[in-house]
């Protein structure tokens, strides 16, 4: 199945923007607070995501013929937008909570997020080109499981000792939850791509 090029271009741009956001946030977390990636850099990518989503909605309003269901187009655009929104939120928490240094598990979670956005990009590309998407969807699903595990173990480590600073627990529990939401959004988008393929058969 081939899409119309205009919808494909927008979805490819949204997926690429999500990849860029994930890569930037990974770098920001890695070097924080001595990072060259500012919160404004991440915010700019979030704005770009919003702009692309708006363009998808406008195209939906003007195109009578769509390559697949309007609801599917709308939800896929929203899921891709959610990925970047959650990335921006996690990044913002670093500054809001005045994090002194990243936890090792947060760097691991960022790596998972980068790989998930890369697999999602490949899935959207494969969908446009009529190639098999299943390997890429499976990759996203595996990464989502891995992200869950990283997050669970990280939060568990915050409760290992009775006298860990309560502020640290609050800060990092929030950050891990938001990073997990970003990875979950990748999986939702991948799931939607899978639904699109099934419906088109």
């Amino acid at each position: 199945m081939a899409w119309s090029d205009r919808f494909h271009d927008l979805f490819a741009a949204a997926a690429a923007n999500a990849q860029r956001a994930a890569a930037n946030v990974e770098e920001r977390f890695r070097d924080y607070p001595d990072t060259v990636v500012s919160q404004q850099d991440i915010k700019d990518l979030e704005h770009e995501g919003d702009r692309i989503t708006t363009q998808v909605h406008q195209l939906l309003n003007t195109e009578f013929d769509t390559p697949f269901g309007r609801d599917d187009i709308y939800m896929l655009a929203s899921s891709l937008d959610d990925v970047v929104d959650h990335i921006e939120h996690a990044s913002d928490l670093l500054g809001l909570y005045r994090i002194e240094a990243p936890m090792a598990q947060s760097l691991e979670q960022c790596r998972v997020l980068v790989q998930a956005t890369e697999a999602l990009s490949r899935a959207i590309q494969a969908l446009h080109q009529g190639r098999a998407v299943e390997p890429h969807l499976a990759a996203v699903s595996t990464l989502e499981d891995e992200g869950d595990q990283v997050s669970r173990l990280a939060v568990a480590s915050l409760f290992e000792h009775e006298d860990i600073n309560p502020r640290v627990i609050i800060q990092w529990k929030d950050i891990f939850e938001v990073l997990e939401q970003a990875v979950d959004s990748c999986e939702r988008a991948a799931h939607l791509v899978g639904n699109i393929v099934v419906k088109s058969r």
Partner: protein
Amino acid sequence: MPASLAAEVVRVVLLRLADDLRAERKLAVAAKQQGWDMASVDRPPDAEHRVRNREADLLVIHDSQESLEFGTRMRRNHAELRLGAIVPAHGSDRAAVLLSAGVDEVVSLAMAPAEIAVRLERVVRQAMTPSTASELSFGALVVDPAEGTVILGTSEIPLSRRERHIVEVLVRAGGRTVSRESLYRQVWGYSMARGDRIVDVNVKRIRGKLSPVSGEIQIVTRPGVGYRLHAGDSAAHPSRATDTEEAGI
């Protein structure tokens, strides 16, 4: 004693035992006589919070196993703190046991408040005496906790409060390895969560600030364990340092 030191207000924290107000009353009278700034707390974490924030010169405990373990740990981890203990009666064997365990002064409820005040204040004032008593050194690296300075050779190193505290802990260890967990507990006052990189990030910053003037002083990493200070010829290859002794602080 210099007039400036005599003018410094002694800050006393009493770790109360439940249902025993006698010690609190006696200390309160002594505090009023001496012009101490005294606080009474019910729980060790509250006392530890004050000690970690350097709001206590003297910690006074009752004679209980839990209080003694807590008090001696505070004393060990905070060299500027002095530890006093209150026993019910004077001349008992308990005073000898407490002093051997690391308590600096033992007073009894049988003493007059004035005697309690003088005995406890004496150990605090001795700790406050300036010059070499308050300074710590490791080679050319000198830390003055009271002044809040870290000097290497002739250069003062501009460190944040946390960074200064880390350097202080390493200097006190005298070249022995201090684990990350121990560094975290002594500087931040809590247990370290697994994966927390605060210690590593701060050590990296300290190294950056020391490097222009470090000369022979290096912070050496012991992989998987922690850090130690090193001075001498092998400072050029700190990663190959083979010290295996841990400070266990």
